Structures are given as structure tokens and as C-alpha cells.
């Protein structure tokens, strides 16, 4: 009987946890995982934007509109400046300018 009671309690706890605490995307991203044909890229958004990190201003990257919008809102695969071109020029450009951060493909992309 103890096992049946345990199973029932655990089921209720599990269902309640899943229902009441669904995975939420934070308003300001912590890290972003970009999925590309050349492998995934993990981007630490918080470290780049925080003053204690690299202190990059929001509008240095989010250059359109008053409020930051997601990059893929404008940079789609078939738009004038493709998403991949936008990211490469933004990321590598900044890394080259500041003399810090990865430049080689395999330093960001993982298969």
C-alpha cells in the first residue's frame, strides 16, 4: 500500500510541477543557442550585456527600434542582410575591434 500511495503522491507532485512551473523564457535572455547549418553556437547574452561583463550597450547590436527586438525579426535567411551575415559581421567585427573574443569558426560553432 505504501508503494501505491507513494506512486500517487509522486504523480500529483510531478504533474503539479510541470503544470504550475512551465519552462519560461526570461524577458532578457541569459544565454542563446543559435542553430545553424555549421553547428550550434552558444551565445552568452548576459555576460555581453552586463556592466560586470563586457558592458556592450543594447543598441550596439539591437540597432533598430526603441526597444531591442530579436535579431531574427529582421535578419531572415532570405532577407537583404542574411542572419548568418549579420551575426558574422556583428560578432567577429566586434571581436576584431576590441581584440578579444573568438574569431575562428570552431571557437563558436559546435557540431
Amino acid at each position: 500500500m505504501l508503494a501505491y500511495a507513494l506512486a500517487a503522491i509522486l504523480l500529483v507532485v510531478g504533474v503539479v510541477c510541470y503544470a504550475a512551473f512551465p519552462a519560461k523564457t526570461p524577458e532578457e535572455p541569459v544565454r542563446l543557442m543559435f542553430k545553424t547549418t555549421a553547428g550550434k553556437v552558444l551565445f552568452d547574452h548576459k555576460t555581453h550585456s552586463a556592466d560586470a561583463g563586457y558592458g556592450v550597450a543594447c543598441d550596439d547590436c539591437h540597432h533598430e527600434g526603441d526597444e531591442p527586438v530579436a535579431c531574427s525579426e529582421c535578419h531572415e535567411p532570405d532577407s537583404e542582410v542574411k542572419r548568418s551575415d549579420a551575426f558574422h559581421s556583428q560578432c567577429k567585427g566586434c571581436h576584431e575591434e576590441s581584440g578579444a573574443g573568438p574569431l575562428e569558426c570552431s571557437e563558436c560553432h559546435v557540431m
Partner: protein
Amino acid sequence: MNNEKKLVVAHAPYWHDGSKISTKNYNIMVAALPAVLMGISHYGAPALGVVAFAMACAMIWELIMNVAMRKPFSIGDGSAAVTGLLLGMLMPATAPWWVIALGTFIALSVGKQIFGGIGFNPLNPPLLALAMLVISFKGVFDFDEALRHYDLGFIMTYPLADLKYFGTEAISKFSLGDLVMGRQSGAIGSTFGLGLIVGGLYLILRGYVRWEISLSFLAGVFITALLFNLSDSNQYAGPMFHLFTGYTLIAAFFLVPEDSSSPANFIPMLLFGVLAGLMTVLIRNVGAYVDGVPFSILLLNLANPLLDKIRPKAIGKVVENA
């Protein structure tokens, strides 16, 4: 009546610690508690949900399989609950509910019940389920992707993924103290090294886990990682890193020594553990997967019957090994 013992037929060493199967399984759950609680304290309600749901699902699948196979109900022995708990501990806190339901189904049906239930499974049920899930749903078990929304105040990139993709330079940021104390990203119940060691030692001292298998597995990981590291320290991480990252410690104390999928003789136990440790580091260092634990142990599970035939004993000779 002549009670004199004429002949004892024995094919393996047997040992009995005097307790019931259910007592053993509830002790395993208690031993796993520190690591589980650390996971829940890090990831909160979602981690509790994964572990609770996995345990409940495993028990329900066991019940369904008992009914389907017209066998006595066996969820009272705690074996299904332990399988669910261990599978939950191997999951990221963000694992979807359907992955848990599917994983526990694989563990309980394919991994255990179709072979005849407890004591008959040739493969470790939670690891079989984990291996099938990792192959089928890579994104769910990419801890960098799965835990990208969490910021817990320590380095949140998955140590083994950093090592695999960016080399030893990328892992210099991890301190051994942080890794031991569970301040690392990973599965719910596999990151708190100290808790797993304490739980494992408890199980060994109580006689529920064979020290030969646990320690030889750790020795296999340590020696193989050390040899790789000595051959090229720029490319391969040191042994301590491998011991305290990924699934190493939960495997050593809760997965490798699982009763029916591991050997019973002394030398086979040592070989089993060492080879599983060797395969784990081989897969991590030169294989395709970030962590080699599920595949290395399953492979050795397959070799288990052969390993136990090393130095076979004549029928009638009892091997004192308990």
C-alpha cells in the same frame, strides 16, 4: 534423517546481507537523496517535477506490465521507483514530460519486464532508456541548450561539452572545488560529487553495492584519463576532471554495480569496472558523444555473461566471495 550436506550446486558466489529487496531499494533512494536535493535546490520545482514524475511513471509502467504479463504486482519492492529515480537524476531539469514517460516505459518494459522482471535484466534499465533517449532527442540532452535560461551564479556551460568542443583551455575556468560541490551544469542528480560519494559509500558499507565494481570503474576512468593526459595534456583533460564531471560518479555508485547486469565473481567484477571506465574516457576523448557513460556501461553489460565465465568453478565448489 541424514542432514549431512552431500553436494552443493553453485554457479556463482552468492551473498545475502539479511535485508529484503525493498529495504535495499529504499536505502538506495536514501543514498541518492543528497544529490537529488542539490539538483532540486539548483533548478527548483522543474527538477522536482522531473524526478517525481519519473518515479511515478516508472511505478505505473511496472504495474501496467505486471497486469499485461499476468504476473504478481511488484511495485512494492521499490525497484521500479529506484529505476525512475535514477532516470530522473540523469535528466536535465528541463526535460519534457513526454520524454520522461517514454524513457520510463523503455526502462521498465524493454529494459526490465520483457526479460522477466527484477534480477533478469541483462542491461541496466535506466541506462538503456538514457542511451535510447540521447540518440533520439539530442537537443533535450544538450545541457548547454537545455539549461540556457538558468543563471545559478556559477559557470553554466556543460564542462564535458566545453572539453569536447573547445579543448583543455576552455575547462581551466572550472575549479575542482566547484565540481565536487555540485557548482556545475548538468543533469539533476549527477553534479553533486560529494553527495554522490557519501551516498555511494553508505551503500558500500551497508553491503548494497559491491565496492569492487564501483572502485574499479573509478580506477578505470582515472587511469585512462591519466594516460591520455600524460600523452598530450594540451588536448586531453586530467583524471580529476573526468572523475567529477558528467555522469561518472552517479554511474560509479548507482549504475555500474546494478545487480543483474554486473558480474558476481571477483576478477570479473574488477575487469567489468575497469573496462567500463576505460570505455567511458575513450568515448569522451575520441568518440562522438560528449559523455560516454551510458554506452560504455551498456557495452560492458553485454559482455557481463562472458566476463563471469572467467575462471569457471567446478559444480559443487562454492566460491566464498561475499
